């Protein structure tokens, strides 16, 4: 059994791993873990990741969780082109810096924006107070400003002149609020231009393929009562 990647393309970090593996023609078996159906709570999956989260990787006996760890593992093991995670000390530090910042800043804002604007009302039938949504969108806005001013600046890509794993992680994050109808790139020409470059570097077909699931999320029929009951306590934290 070769490399297995346990993913749900509903999730931002899963999309980054998927795009990276496909773009670099890394051979893997896709094991889909449907989060909305609660498949990440199965005993079988706990053998792969006891933390019960996706993405997860299984390479022979070696299992690994957390998207940054998985991306770096794949880049080293499969010796992907240097620009993805450069050897140069400073260039690589720029990638590390972005990956660290985004985890506790942009990721949170993007997840909450998507859930509060779309998943809660449409899928779970939960009313989100307008002040909560407004505050989340304001926070998202601040993160986008930082992304432009402190990371992208006048470069073509986040960590330099070439695409890196930082850009994959960023673009898949931003597609979350985009899928909920948030005008992330409106009035942000610099960011919009970066997005075009990233999509072109990834390839339109692969980009669309990776985002098919999330872009269709707004058309999901409301969850049935059993699913609602199960999901509500788990996503409470996203209501703040």
């Amino acid at each position, binding site marked *: 059994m070769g490399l297995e990647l346990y993913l749900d393309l509903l999730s931002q970090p899963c999309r980054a791993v998927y795009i990276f593996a496909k773009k670099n023609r890394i051979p893997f078996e896709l094991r889909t873990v449907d989060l909305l159906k609660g498949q990440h709570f199965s005993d079988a999956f706990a053998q792969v990741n006891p933390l019960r989260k996706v993405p997860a990787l299984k390479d022979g006996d070696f299992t690994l969780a957390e998207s940054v760890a998985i991306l770096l*593992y794949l880049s080293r093991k499969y010796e992907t082109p240097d620009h993805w995670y450069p050897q140069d000390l400073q260039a690589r530090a720029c990638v590390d810096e972005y990956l660290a910042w985004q985890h506790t800043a942009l990721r949170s804002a993007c997840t909450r924006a998507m859930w509060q604007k779309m998943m809660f009302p449409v899928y779970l039938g939960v009313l989100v107070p307008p002040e909560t949504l407004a505050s989340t969108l304001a926070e998202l806005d601040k993160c986008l400003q930082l992304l432009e001013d402190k990371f992208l600046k006048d470069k073509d890509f986040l960590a330099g002149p070439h695409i890196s794993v930082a850009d994959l992680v960023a673009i898949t994050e931003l597609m979350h609020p985009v899928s909920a109808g948030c005008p992330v790139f409106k009035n942000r020409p610099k960011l919009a231009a970066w997005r075009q470059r990233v999509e072109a570097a990834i390839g339109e077909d692969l980009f669309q393929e990776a985002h098919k699931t999330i872009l269709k999320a707004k058309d999901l029929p409301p969850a049935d009562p059993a699913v609602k009951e199960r999901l509500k306590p788990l996503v409470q934290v996203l209501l703040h």
Partner: protein
Amino acid sequence: MGLELYLDLLSQPSRAVYIFAKKNGIPFQLRALDLLKGHHLNPEFLPANSLQRVPVLKDGDFLLTESVAILIYLSIKYQTADHWYPSDLQARMRIHEYLGWHGDCIRSTFGVSLWAQVLAPLIGIQVPEEKLKRNRAAMDRALQCLEDKFLGDKAFLTGQQVTLADIMALEELMQAVAIGCDLFEGRPRLAAWRQRVEAFLGADLCRETHSVIWSIRELAANKKLPDPPPEMRSRMLLRIARIP
């Protein structure tokens, strides 16, 4: 001008960087900031174009933020002992795996007690009890996971030797321990891990690095903490509001 590190030892990630640099004998100029005085908002105290946060590394013209990025940079540039950030792929990835989970479940979770007991009262705010209750539950879950899913029967979090993961974890937990939270009560394996990490780092270095956080409660009680300026107050209010 050699390596400069902009740090406030009140901050967990600042301490991780400080303790790593010191332990490894990495020569640097310490640029000490006082976050409570709003130094990080003042261009006089931080290099231009930084994110108004600490820690910041300045190496010639090269500026770097984010403690994890700084730690990795230092470990490679100064060729620290392999165990800190092993060249073995799987061992190295265990550290990144830990740090991913740490970002979600440890970072900011263990800082809430300091906000509740010292920082919020400094600006006349009381953190609601229901938030504190949720935080205690979150700390409990995180410690359980730290013990069961990461430490297990190993000497350290990702293997048999100290790594960057251990100092990142230790400094977050210290934020709560130093103001009286008995995190290790009933957790002998974690308590033993903590002893091992501190023994490895050395008592003197730990004392030096942790002196600010250990004395913060007393300073507050004796009204010796600075009065945060207005621009700090508004940020502090925002931060308190974000406590889940």
